[in-house]
């Protein structure tokens, strides 16, 4: 069935239409896509769009909005329809971008070198010496292969006549290539056949070339002990951290390229060499791909207030001991002030004409230019000359009266701070319009194209990141202010070689069997990932057991002794208020409580290990005093504020209504339900958030599937009101348990048993050991007559028990299963043995105090006589459990001291090991 897709498609007048030619017909390179869409059954495109959105959501692709103190992430907005470029069009772009990258490289080498451009009058000296991005400590630096600009990105716009113009250059740490790669992965799945049929060029090879080139130059960074021919240089990706706007992309690239993602604190400079702090000691770093801004890279010589950099990095780079890509100081070229001088510089340095013009730009630092700019202000965009000035572009035509006068006054006062650029009318391309009726509509687009340096010159990524204006102001597109993106298709003249597509080849001929470059910080995060996942699971189970008994409970008179033990456990985890508060007199009027007890917002702290240590004290390692924490008392306040009547309008059919429920029971139920869903009180939602935060430090180590499971876990459950109904709460808890099982499955079955995994696994074991010993201690303090079902349920051991005994649980059998049974993955013994094994494998040596204590406790546990000791109120077992609990906390501290607080010995290098 063919439909008219174009019934509402109109490109704005005076713009170039990417899709249609002057006669209103699809251009040749769009025909195939147009045909496909027109022939499809109605709804196919809608499904495609939904599947794209789902993938974006599940892969967790996001863009951080910097201005937001809470580090809000905006989901990546990916358009289902690609931008298709004609072959000849692309050939021109490619040639122009290669020329421009080569030119910029030469400018960089000159400005930080002999400065002939200044001497010969091709660049105004005041432009360079007054440029906030001109970093004097970087002058005279030498670069392997004479390349200072390793990556380059350029923003292009197509004018009404069909010509492409340069709007801006990205020379410091260009972002977007990773997003382009991810866009392709998703869109490739939406149009699998079309990509092949249209011979769309794959992107993977570009990244391989980039990595190989860096590796080649990295070999030349030969300070210290030289690399063997066959040995791969260590390349790391330096990130400003997870609050950076493009952190997602950095982690994605690190994972894709197989590079350690490091923060400034993971690196250190000694004797002019750069080292990565790993578990096995210091490892020499040869290449740093950086996403940290120039001046933040080195607090010693550049910005002294930077917490993101590596002290001494500038000097290490100056000595040629490390390759920083892009070289420090390359931000200089991002200044729009340079654009007007480029044609002359190009002819001087390359002896050829500039192939692609920049949008007309004037630097107001020249008196004539300033005069002209003020005259035609209405037709210009005014931008800061240097990105360091951190101002947003202003459109002359938007300004009136006072605003206009004050801008002109500011330009006159510091003219060299301003550039003015002519406005380009962006070309328009089709986006899918859901209708009804379905069809295409036109949106303004801009194209970011990427190039990387190789020893044989620059190569351009065959594609790019197309950005789509979504806001009402189609004149600018910035990701910071919202905006969509598109995959970009460039067609090959021959069928691309399928085999290399998207795959990177090893840059070294030596086999690597372990993660020797695992940073101490990463190991710490892995350990906490294990702990937090387990803690999440424990809390979900505890809530489920507690809520079940609350719902089934017939009132205080009918309760068994297990009730108190369960509630004590809940109190220990601060899921419900403590006894005094539960029994407290009816609350004050709600309004007052709310007004006064507003808790301090928990802001993310920029230093990961710190913020982690804070967030991690969530449950297991804390003492009773936790219920006094501000968060807990806030929970109490909130619960107290919702007085007697049923806590939430419940949709589930209630059992026969109780005549009068005691206020404590009402409060307990409300608190438990709140703990399921509220991220502001200790409970499941908060713990999930902790888990997610830890995971986001591990982005590049977790697979996409792993992330998908995590993102499912994080999806906010839909509830009819603020508090979930009992039925809703149970569904959330069941789903959580399933999702956590999936995560645990990945860890068990999908991850290499390298040192990183050992830490993750150890974290899990330690957490479970603490939970089980805590739970059993509570159980042993309860009356002999109490029901034991809840212990089995908390330990996920009901099925095993029933299969073995087919009878009501009895103390001896239950305790045997949960304490001494070596086959039960929830038993204390199983954990102890697992911890000991784990310690051994992460390299804890014998005579380690913590390990020795654990070993002694295990022996003691094995020596228990079932008949005498595995009984209700068993004092010997209780004391042993208390000591196990204490010892596991002590062990966690020792591990942290030994592995995570860094000591600083150089690691031994691996012996050469060749492929057979």
């Amino acid at each position: 069935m063919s439909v008219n897709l174009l019934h509402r498609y109109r490109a704005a007048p005076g713009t170039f239409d990417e899709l249609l030619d002057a006669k209103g017909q699809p251009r040749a390179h769009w025909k195939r896509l147009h045909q496909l869409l027109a022939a499809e059954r109605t709804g196919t495109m809608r499904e495609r769009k939904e599947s794209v959105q789902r993938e974006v959501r599940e892969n967790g692709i996001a863009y951080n909005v910097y201005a937001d103190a809470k580090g809000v992430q905006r989901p990546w907005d990916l358009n289902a329809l690609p931008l298709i470029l004609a072959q000849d069009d692309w050939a021109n772009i490619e040639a122009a971008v290669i020329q421009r990258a080569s030119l910029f490289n030469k400018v960089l080498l000159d400005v930080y070198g002999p400065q002939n451009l200044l001497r010969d009058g091709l660049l105004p000296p005041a432009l360079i010496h007054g440029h906030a991005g001109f970093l004097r400590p970087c002058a005279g630096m030498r670069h392997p292969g004479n390349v200072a600009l390793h990556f380059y990105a350029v923003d292009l716009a197509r004018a009404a006549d069909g010509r492409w113009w340069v709007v801006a250059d990205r020379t410091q740490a260009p972002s977007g290539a990773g997003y382009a790669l991810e866009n392709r992965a998703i869109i490739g799945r939406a149009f699998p056949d079309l990509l092949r049929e249209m011979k769309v060029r794959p992107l993977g090879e570009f990244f391989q070339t980039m990595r190989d080139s860096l590796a080649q130059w990295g070999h030349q960074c030969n300070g210290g002990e030289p690399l063997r021919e066959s040995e791969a240089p260590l390349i790391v990706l330096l990130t400003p951290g997870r609050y950076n706007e493009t952190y997602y992309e950095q982690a994605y690239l690190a994972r894709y390229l197989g590079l350690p993602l490091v923060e400034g604190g993971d690196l250190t400079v000694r004797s002019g060499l750069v080292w990565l702090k790993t578990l096995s000691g210091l490892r020499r770093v040869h290449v740093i791909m950086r996403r940290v801004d120039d001046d933040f890279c080195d607090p010693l010589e550049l910005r002294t207030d930077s917490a993101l950099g590596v002290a001494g990095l500038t000097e290490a780079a100056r000595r040629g001991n490390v390759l920083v890509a892009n070289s420090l100081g390359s931000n200089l070229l991002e200044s729009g002030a340079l654009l007007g001088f480029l044609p002359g510089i190009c002819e001087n340095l390359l002896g050829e004409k500039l192939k692609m013009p920049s949008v007309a730009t004037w630097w107001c630092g020249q008196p004539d230019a300033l005069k002209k700019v003020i005259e035609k202000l209405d037709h210009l965009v005014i931008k800061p000359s240097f990105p360091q000035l951190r101002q947003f572009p202003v459109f002359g035509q938007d300004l009136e009266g006072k605003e206009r006068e004050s801008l002109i006054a500011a330009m006159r006062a510091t003219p060299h701070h301003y550039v003015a650029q002519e406005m380009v009318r962006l070309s328009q391309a089709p986006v899918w319009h859901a209708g009804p009726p379905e069809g295409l509509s036109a949106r303004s687009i801009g194209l970011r194209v990427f190039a990387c340096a190789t020893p044989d010159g620059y190569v351009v990524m065959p594609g790019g990141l197309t950005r789509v204006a979504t806001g009402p102001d189609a004149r600018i597109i910035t990701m910071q202010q919202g905006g969509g993106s598109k995959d970009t298709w460039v067609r090959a003249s021959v069928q691309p070689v399928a085999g290399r597509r998207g795959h990177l080849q090893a840059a070294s001929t030596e086999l690597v069997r372990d993660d020797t470059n695992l940073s101490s910080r990463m190991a710490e995060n892995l350990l906490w990932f294990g702990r937090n996942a387990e803690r999440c699971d424990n809390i979900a189970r505890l809530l489920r057991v507690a809520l079940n008994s609350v719902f089934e409970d017939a009132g205080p008179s009918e309760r068994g002794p297990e009730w108190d033990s369960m509630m004590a456990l809940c109190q220990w985890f601060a899921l419900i208020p403590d006894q005094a508060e539960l029994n407290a007199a009816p609350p004050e009027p709600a309004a007052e409580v709310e007004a006064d007890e507003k808790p301090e917002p928990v802001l993310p702290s920029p230093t990961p290990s710190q913020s982690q240590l804070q967030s991690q004290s969530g449950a297991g390692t804390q003492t009773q005093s936790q219920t006094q924490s501000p968060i807990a008392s806030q929970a109490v306040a909130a619960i107290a504020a919702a007085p007697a009547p049923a806590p939430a309008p419940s949709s589930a059919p209630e059992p026969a209504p109780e005549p009068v429920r005691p206020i404590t029971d009402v409060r307990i139920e409300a608190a438990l339900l709140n703990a399921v869903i509220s991220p502001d009180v200790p409970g499941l939602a908060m713990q999930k958030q902790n888990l997610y935060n830890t995971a986001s430090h591990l982005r590049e180590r977790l697979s996409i599937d792993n992330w998908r499971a995590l993102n499912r876990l994080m999806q906010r459950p839909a509830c009819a009101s603020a508090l979930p109904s009992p039925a809703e709460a149970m569904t959330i808890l069941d789903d959580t348990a399933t999702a956590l099982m999936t995560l645990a499955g990945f860890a068990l079955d999908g991850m290499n048993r390298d040192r990183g995994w050992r830490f993750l696994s150890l974290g899990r074991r330690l957490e479970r050991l603490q939970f089980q010993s805590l739970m059993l201690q509570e159980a042993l303090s309860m009356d002999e007559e109490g029901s034991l079902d809840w212990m089995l349920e908390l330990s996920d051991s009901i099925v095993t028990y029933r299969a073995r005994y087919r009878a009501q649980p009895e103390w001896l059998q239950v305790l045997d299963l949960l304490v001494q049974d070596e086959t039960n993955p929830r038993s204390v013994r199983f954990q102890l043995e697992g911890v000991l094994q784990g310690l051994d494998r992460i390299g804890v040596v014998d005579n380690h105090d913590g390990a020795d204590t654990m070993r002694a406790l295990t022996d003691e546990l094995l020596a228990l006589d079932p008949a005498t000791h595995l009984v209700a109120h068993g004092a010997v077992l209780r004391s042993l459990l208390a000591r196990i609990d204490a010892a596991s906390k002590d062990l966690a501290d020792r591990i942290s001291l030994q592995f995570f607080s860094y000591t600083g010995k150089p690691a031994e290098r691996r012996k050469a090991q060749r492929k057979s």
Partner: protein
Amino acid sequence: MSMPEQPAGPRYWVQHATHYTYQQLVSLSQQYLHVSPRDFDYQRTEAHRIIIDPPAEDGGIGADFFGNCTRYATITTPHQKLLVQAESTVVLSPRLTLAQIAGSAPWERVRDALVTPHGAAALDAIRYMSSSPHVRCSAELAAYARLDFGPGRPLLDAALAFTQRIFDDFEYDGSATDISTPLDEVLRLKRGVCQDFAQLMIGCMRSIGLPARYVSGYVLTHPPPGQPRMIGADASHAWVSVYCPQRGWVDFDPTNRSLVQSEHITLGWGRDFSDVTPLRGVVLGGGDHDLVVNVTVTPLDAATPA
């Protein structure tokens, strides 16, 4: 013993000791030092050493963008006290006298010639014309400068008069400002120390389009009559160098309303304090710290061996 080419000026021995005391243990300390005197037309270093305690691992010696002597030091021995002590013996050569700086070109001509600079000296001079981290040019500074830089006035004449104006208008006050006090604040307060006065004069000159650089060093002080020179009683000093196409860079000291002659010992120069900070460091650990600096400048007898 070979004779210097120029008639030798005075010799000085300078000791510059910096003591850090940290509240907590420092496990790693990286320092970037600007405490070695540079050699140039008016100064030659006879002897120099830097003592660091605990001892430093890495002694990378180099030159910065402006040609000043630098040194890196990495201290990996855990410590709670750090001493960096530089000792230098320098010989000065006579500088231009008041009579010799008379009759320089009108300042506007110097300014206009630098709009399109020709020659190495001019290309060097324009490095010191723009705003820099501690010196932000402004209309207020320009207005203050014009009080002495009147139409057609010879550049060096105006500069000398300007040092007198700063001396008269401003009060030396060690507590009114700190290293991060911006210039317009200094101009408003009319108080400060040598660094403020030097940067103020630099800012004023740059604001009217003239290059000026910040010089870091020491100045000889004179004990009260009849009293001995006190060890460690001197301090680091800062003054201004002004570019004159005919006479090269000429130094003025606004703190002492003078043309620099034979009592100033130069460490180095840059656009402002941030380019020539004597000690710049990054430490791991440490917590709060105390800092004590002792400088001693001792005139040596020209006949005494170095």
